[in-house]
């Protein structure tokens, strides 16, 4: 391997010819980069050490940075959340891992009452520069509680950022941004596409902007808005629609909170139609906020009712049925056609 290092670059570039990596490898790469770059970055969670995480997101980090930078915690999510808040308040930058989406609930108290409030409560005297990473969503044939899309739990909570990357490049760039952000970030990783495909992602330490939507595909007839694993199905739906001569714009929301509604509004102003796609249950899922903003601010642009393609208002079933629960390319195409027919 051809190793290139600039002496004034603490983090260093690791490889001159970056190879294509998966989303999960991009996560690991971003963690490693920022741990080299900033020694206040600490990784903690269950099995993140020697084992490298149940999904291998932290693989090799303990070997590289030592057991004082990568900590296996006792098995308690309340503990992880509370320790993270306390460390962050003392100026460290903890990046905690919740092992699965379904195990985040015991963390809600410390996140909502403390992480999201320290700056506000103390008028800026203390704050919480922390990231909580969590493998998110369904579709991997996992046991119960390993498949939940629970982003809505956090989107009504002031003071938080909720970020959901959908490609290796965005995983790398947004995770770097999340770690560097001085406020708490819930970083949800679509586990279904952890290893779906590879992409060349330079390990250059360049963060991508938070708080903005990413337009993945330009279009003029209809706007498809989504995030996380469903980006894939949505892009495929756009392909299918194109085949029928329909030009779909595809937007990856990427940061749900705070929402960059301007980008969505601009697109809908152009297309007049909008389908929102997410895998969480429909009622009061985050899609509702986007539809609400459209009803408030884009009413006169809308040529058709807004459509939501979502999980049903029931729990995601165990894996024998789970794919029937999730949004599919067909469901998205059908919704788009309904909107276009309206």
């Amino acid at each position, binding site marked *: 391997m051809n190793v290139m290092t600039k002496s004034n670059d603490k983090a260093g570039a690791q490889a001159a010819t970056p190879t294509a990596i998966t989303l999960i490898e991009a996560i690991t790469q971003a963690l490693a980069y920022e741990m080299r770059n900033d020694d206040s970055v600490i990784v903690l969670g*269950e*099995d993140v*050490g*020697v*084992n*490298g995480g*149940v999904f291998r997101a932290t693989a090799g980090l303990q070997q590289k940075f030592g057991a004082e930078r990568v900590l*296996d915690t*006792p*098995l*308690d999510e*309340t*503990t992880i959340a509370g320790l993270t808040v306390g460390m962050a308040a003392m100026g460290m930058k903890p990046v905690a891992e919740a092992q699965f989406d*379904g*195990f985040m*609930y*015991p963390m809600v108290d410390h996140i909502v009452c403390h992480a999201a409030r320290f700056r506000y409560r103390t008028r800026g005297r203390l704050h919480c520069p922390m990231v909580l990473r969590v493998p998110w969503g369904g579709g991997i*044939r*996992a*046991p*119960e*509680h*390993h498949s939940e899309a629970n982003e809505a739990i956090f989107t009504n909570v002031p003071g938080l950022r909720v970020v959901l990357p959908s490609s290796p490049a965005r995983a790398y760039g947004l995770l770097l941004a999340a770690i560097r952000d001085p406020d708490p970030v819930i970083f949800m990783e679509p586990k279904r596409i952890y290893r779906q495909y590879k992409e060349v992602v330079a390990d250059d330490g360049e963060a991508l902007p938070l708080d903005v939507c990413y337009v993945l595909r330009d279009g003029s007839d209809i706007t498809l808005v989504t995030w996380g694993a469903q980006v894939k199905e949505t892009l495929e739906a756009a392909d299918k629609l194109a085949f029928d001569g329909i030009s779909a714009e595809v937007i990856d929301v990427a940061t749900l909170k705070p929402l960059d509604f301007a980008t969505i509004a601009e697109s809908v102003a152009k297309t007049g139609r909008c389908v929102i796609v997410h895998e969480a249950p*429909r*009622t009061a899922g985050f899609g509702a906020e986007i539809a609400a903003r459209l009803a408030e601010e884009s009413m006169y642009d809308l040529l058709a009712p807004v459509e939501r393609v979502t999980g*049903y*208002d*029931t*729990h995601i*079933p*165990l*894996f*024998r*049925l*789970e794919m*029937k*629960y999730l949004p599919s390319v067909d*469901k998205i195409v059908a919704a788009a056609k309904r909107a276009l027919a309206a």
Partner: protein
Amino acid sequence: MTVAARFEIEYLQYLGPDGKLVAEPPAAFADPKTLLPLFKQMLFVRTFDSKSIALQRTGKLGTYASCLGHEATHVGIGGSMRPEDVFAPSYREYGAQFMRGVKPREVLMYWGGDERGNDFEGPRHDFSWSVPISTQCLHAAGAALAFKLRKQPRVAVACCGDGGSSKTDFYAALNSAGAFTLPLVLCVINNGWAISVPRSAQTGAKTLAQKGLAGGLNSFQVDGNDLIAVLEGMRRATELARAGGGGSVIEFLTYRLHDHTTADDARRYRSEDEVKDAWTRDPMTRLRTYLTAHKLWDEATEKAWAEECAKRVDVELNAYLETPVQPVEAMFDYLYADPPPDLLEQRAAAIALEKRA
């Protein structure tokens, strides 16, 4: 110096790793014959376990959590309960559940991604598997509180792991058991590992049993590979509970001989030597030796029983494999007793989509 309180944590062991008695067994279990049916059940569980792992490897089962090495603890716990008691397992105590009437096919359904595995025929009031670690301990405490308020002589028994004993719900359960003097037995099954995290990283406590002192509970350790110790520990705890004497924390010392689950590779984080060493304390071997010494078991019997186990497990496996998938509406039909109209609309839409497909 004034001393406000003093405590001792007892350790129970009767049958050593070599199959010889290290202490006089308690009267209730002095006759080795009483152990025979449980030993047979332990063998059955081990057969079930290895066949389930094999099934998973062929792609016919989802992630599966093996119980290899836990047979004495699991079967001993299940065998110490009454049908009217309530059991709150974590996710690998099949031995305890089989003793209570849960069917192997139901275990397979659950790990096979079908909720109907939780609709088991075992005691209908038992809790189902609990994936969120140790939350079942608090549900068992709630059940125990219900028994107490209704003045029913029933006991709630919950299991969690060494890792699970770090979970706040475990502490909440023992705190409640003490505060309300609940008929609750908290079984901490210390198998040395919580996935890749060793027992030593979970806590600074010398024993996990002593956590019970935080709630003023009856707290002790047993050798979880010694069926007699398991039975005696459970006897003490359930009798105390049934008599209104309150809760217990029992730490069962055993070892997870397999990977955490079929999705895990334990070689990444623990040494072959440690596992080899743990095999010398295998609960099966020592009991076999003991029963053989008492002429209650021999190779021929073992062979016959092993065949019988294999046959019975195959019946269960086939029953599982032949169970058709639930219809799509199953994901709507058990959410509310009284489902709201919007949900029924979604249900109808899902069915329509199926028909089209």
